[in-house]
């Protein structure tokens, strides 16, 4: 790639702000720094029991015998529950609008295995005892007899005639089709057709905080569950499974030690609810790290094939894309993940003639569900590697090929959804390429490669879910601000961002705002901390609530000072006449004036995302998401041709975040997301062999350490065109998406051949070089 000059940005004028846009110390930072923040596993209760889960050791087997009588007799064991005791309750993973809900309801995961286990790690029984040691002893006393069943371990095998079927009538969990334009005509117009296939592995979330929690039944009979979760609104699903009214289950979320999608699923909370109800005592359950690997969701393995018709100048005339995803033993969120991958299959490019066929199938392996990016990163590994393959086939610069196809604002995605916000693809790509600087020279044994990827990723949930969020904002008598919002904070700064927004609108310093969050009973429900939606959804809800309070304060202040409301602003805890700052009312005095007259200084607001109908399932056409974030990553790698080792030398990431509410937090999201993507490309693979886990701990499943990769050069762009507060776009998931394909393209650049399967281990590198070894 030749030297690249950053594309000039459009002239964007963003209004000046006081709190928003500043890299302030996050409201949650100091408590975490000094160890004062209390996480789910840190809570204890008087008279508390300790729980353990018995898990399947077989990938596919009939349960011939599950004898818990000896475990129940062990002194100190308060209760042992099996599927019979929970009356065959299922984890209702369906959400409104889930594809295939009616047809596939039989494949919902049981809370405890019924007659058959379908993956290693599937829960079979629960024990609660006076101590953890007794609970562990009780597990040993449970008698199990399995009758092994033939298993199926790849999506390809799962579709073959005669394959073992996990759920009748077949192993298909979900499928989609997109039919847009005229594929045959487009292919006929092409000068060249390029076909490539790419494969991606299972990946573990590996957040540092294992899942855990404590549950108890209170004096009203309400089942309280204190748990680290991305979704406090699972209280409804839990109530359904327990057969109790929804107002008798309360989830009190904690500060979450990382989620990345896996704490979107119901994990320990359903077990805790059953055990607390059964025993009438507080119960604690915390997964071990090994249990974490066996019990929780993984990122979906995908195989993606692109067949692309192109003109000699790089213009795409047609694209035919197939995607096959591994759902593991139960569907969980697979239908949605597959939808995301399908809807983003063509990338941020204008492709008028396109067919996409996607399918997800069941196998006897760990179930797959949400993981940061939710299918978007897999789609990007398809379209961005293919763009480089096209460039290679046409002997064009990869940036030139992308330039020939970039979508613009108003252009449609492959599902026909027009993008309404800024599309700064080239702006991002040219900046990351420029940031790499001078190219490192090759040595006789080390080949240097460079690559980049241009991606887009939705933020906000699927619009036919009719998503909502609520927030309550109030001003106290001393002029401090209280925010109540049910947002789960999973470490990305969810709480802080909305505090900074309230501080901005009400003209107070950030330290004068206190937030109460993540309680399904007493904080207004704000929806899930998933889908890069909280800044967008709850940020808008807080904006609405704070603006309402602001309007009341301004009206009363204007009256007090004898000026028009438009002449008053709130800043530094005062209402100030903008033309003459010497005239002001202290906020606390203004609050007293309002209180004396009965003017309410709190407000509960609800923000509704755009509501749309579902896709046309014949053509796959329709709107899916509120908006998209566009970004790019470029990397330089050094590949040692003797050892197959890949060293990452440089990495730059650039995203248009619309508006950075807290630039330091945005930098953290981009740097951290990029890092996860680098690990995805270079080292991470959750390995199963015939359904048995080969990477059961952090000693076998390696995630990046501080010495593996250099710091990412983070470039933040602000178009101000997002649908979030102050024009913000979401960045949590989009941050991860471009990193892995950028590495893939750099490795291909270095080697001259493409390794079709992630991660790029030394073994695969040496094989690609025609130099296989037993390393």
């Amino acid at each position, binding site marked *: 790639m030749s030297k690249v000059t950053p594309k000039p940005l459009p002239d964007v004028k963003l209004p000046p702000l006081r709190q928003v846009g500043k890299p302030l110390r996050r409201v949650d930072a100091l408590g975490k720094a*000094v160890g004062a923040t209390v996480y789910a596993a840190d809570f204890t209760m008087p008279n508390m029991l300790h729980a353990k889960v018995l898990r399947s050791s077989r990938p596919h087997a009939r349960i011939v015998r599950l004898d818990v009588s000896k475990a129940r007799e062990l002194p100190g064991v308060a209760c042992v529950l099996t599927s019979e005791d929970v009356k065959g309750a299922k984890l209702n993973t369906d959400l409104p609008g889930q594809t295939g809900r009616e047809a596939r309801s039989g494949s919902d995961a049981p809370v405890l295995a019924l007659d058959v286990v379908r993956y290693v790690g599937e829960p079979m029984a629960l024990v609660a005892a006076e101590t953890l040691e007794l609970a562990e002893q009780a597990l040993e006393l449970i008698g199990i007899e399995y009758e092994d069943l033939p298993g199926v371990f790849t999506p390809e095998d799962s579709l073959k005639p005669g394959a073992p079927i996990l759920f009748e009538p077949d192993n298909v969990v979900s499928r989609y089709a997109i039919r847009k334009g005229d594929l045959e005509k487009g292919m006929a117009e092409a000068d060249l057709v390029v076909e490539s296939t790419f494969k991606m592995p299972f990946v573990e979330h590996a957040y540092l905080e294992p899942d855990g929690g404590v549950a108890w039944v209170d004096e009203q009979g309400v089942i309280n569950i204190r748990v680290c979760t991305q979704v406090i609104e699972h209280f409804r699903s839990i109530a359904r499974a327990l057969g109790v009214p929804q107002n008798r289950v309360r989830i009190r979320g904690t500060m979450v030690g990382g989620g990345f999608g896996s704490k979107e699923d119901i994990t320990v909370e359903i077990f805790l609810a059953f055990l607390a109800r059964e025993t009438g005592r507080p119960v604690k359950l915390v997964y071990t790290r090994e249990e974490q690997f066996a019990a929780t969701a993984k990122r979906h393995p995908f195989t993606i094939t692109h067949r692309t018709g192109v003109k000699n100048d790089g213009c795409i005339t047609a694209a035919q894309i197939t995607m096959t995803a591994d759902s593991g033993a139960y569907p969980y969120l697979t239908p949605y993940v597959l939808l995301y991958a399908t809807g983003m299959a063509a990338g941020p490019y204008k492709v008028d003639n396109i067919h996409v066929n996607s399918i997800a199938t069941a196998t006897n392996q760990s179930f797959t569900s949400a993981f940061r990016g939710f299918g978007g990163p897999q789609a990007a590994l398809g379209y961005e590697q293919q763009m480089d393959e096209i460039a290679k086939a046409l002997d064009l610069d990869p940036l030139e090929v992308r330039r020939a196809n970039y979508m613009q604002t108003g252009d449609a995605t492959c599902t026909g959804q027009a993008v309404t916000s800024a599309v700064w693809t080239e702006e991002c790509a040219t900046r990351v390429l420029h940031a790499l600087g001078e190219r490192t020279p090759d040595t006789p044994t080390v080949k240097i490669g460079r690559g980049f990827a241009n991606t887009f990723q939705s933020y906000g949930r699927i619009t036919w879910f009719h998503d909502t969020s609520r927030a309550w904002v109030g001003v106290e008598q001393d002029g401090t601000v209280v925010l109540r919002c049910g947002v789960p904070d999973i470490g990305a700064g969810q709480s802080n961002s909305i505090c900074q927004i309230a501080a901005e609108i009400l003209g107070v310093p950030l330290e004068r705002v206190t937030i109460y969050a993540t309680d399904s009973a007493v904080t207004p429900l704000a929806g899930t901390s998933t889908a890069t939606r909280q800044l967008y959804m709850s940020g808008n809800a807080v904006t609405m609530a704070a603006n309402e309070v602001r309007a009341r304060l301004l009206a009363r202040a204007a009256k007090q000072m004898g000026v028009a409301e438009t002449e008053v602003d709130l800043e530094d805890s005062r209402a100030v006449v903008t033309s003459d700052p010497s005239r002001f009312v202290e906020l606390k005095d203004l609050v007293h004036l309002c209180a004396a007259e009965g003017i309410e200084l709190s407000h509960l607001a609800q923000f509704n995302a755009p509501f749309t109908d579902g896709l046309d399932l014949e053509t796959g056409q329709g709107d899916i998401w509120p908006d998209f974030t566009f970004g790019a990553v470029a990397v330089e790698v050094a590949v040692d041709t003797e050892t197959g080792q890949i060293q990452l030398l440089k990495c730059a990431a650039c995203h248009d975040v619309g508006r950075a509410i807290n630039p*330091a937090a945005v930098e953290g999201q981009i740097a951290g997301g990029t890092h996860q993507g680098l690990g995805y490309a270079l080292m991470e693979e959750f390995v199963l062999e015939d359904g048995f886990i080969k990477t059961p701990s952090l000693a076998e499943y390696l995630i990046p350490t501080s010495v593996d990769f250099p710091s990412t050069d983070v470039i933040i762009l602000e178009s101000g065109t997002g649908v979030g507060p102050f024009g913000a776009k979401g960045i949590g998931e989009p941050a991860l998406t471009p990193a892995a394909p950028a590495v893939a393209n750099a490795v291909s650049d270095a080697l001259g051949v493409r390794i079709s399967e992630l991660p790029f281990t030394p073994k695969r590198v040496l094989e690609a070089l025609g130099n296989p070894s037993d390393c």
Partner: protein
Amino acid sequence: MGRTAIHLTVNGRRHEVSLSANTTLLTALRDLGYTDVKNGCEIGECGACAVFLNGEAVNSCMVLAHQADGAEIVTNAGLGTMKDPHPIQEAFADAGAIQCGFCTPGMVISTKALLDRNPNPTEGEIRTALSGNLCRCTGYGQIVAGVRLAAQRLQQSASSPASASSQSEEGQEPASEKRVLASGEQEKAGGDSK
């Protein structure tokens, strides 16, 4: 299982506890209420449970509680508090080094161990010193920046006479030290971000 009594002094508080032979120091500390010591893996891979054991940074999951009988232990919460944070803790908060916060107590311990022996480390030295502490959120860049900021502030305070007397006492930094250092640093930390 038989239990025998041991003594642990944690953050200056003396405890006598009866524990079975296979109880780890991690479990003992958490059961005593020192929940800032985090359990991330129990096999010494993640570093979230790091503490000072007689002045040496260790993963508390890899030490049996009985091996620590009579020892002085300092956890992250023993270095500073909300009211009186340690300069390393404050620097982490200012540099954006904290996201989910679960790795932070162990990171702070490893940072203090580094800066105690090497007050002005290079980026490579910082990265090596933190290589036993996993973080899944940040990508480590802002943590490295936090360590640098802490080193800078500690060196400034070491050259100011007011703090000289405080160095002997673990975690007992005088309030004046932070006030001296707080001015202008917020902007500096912000300036490191784009």
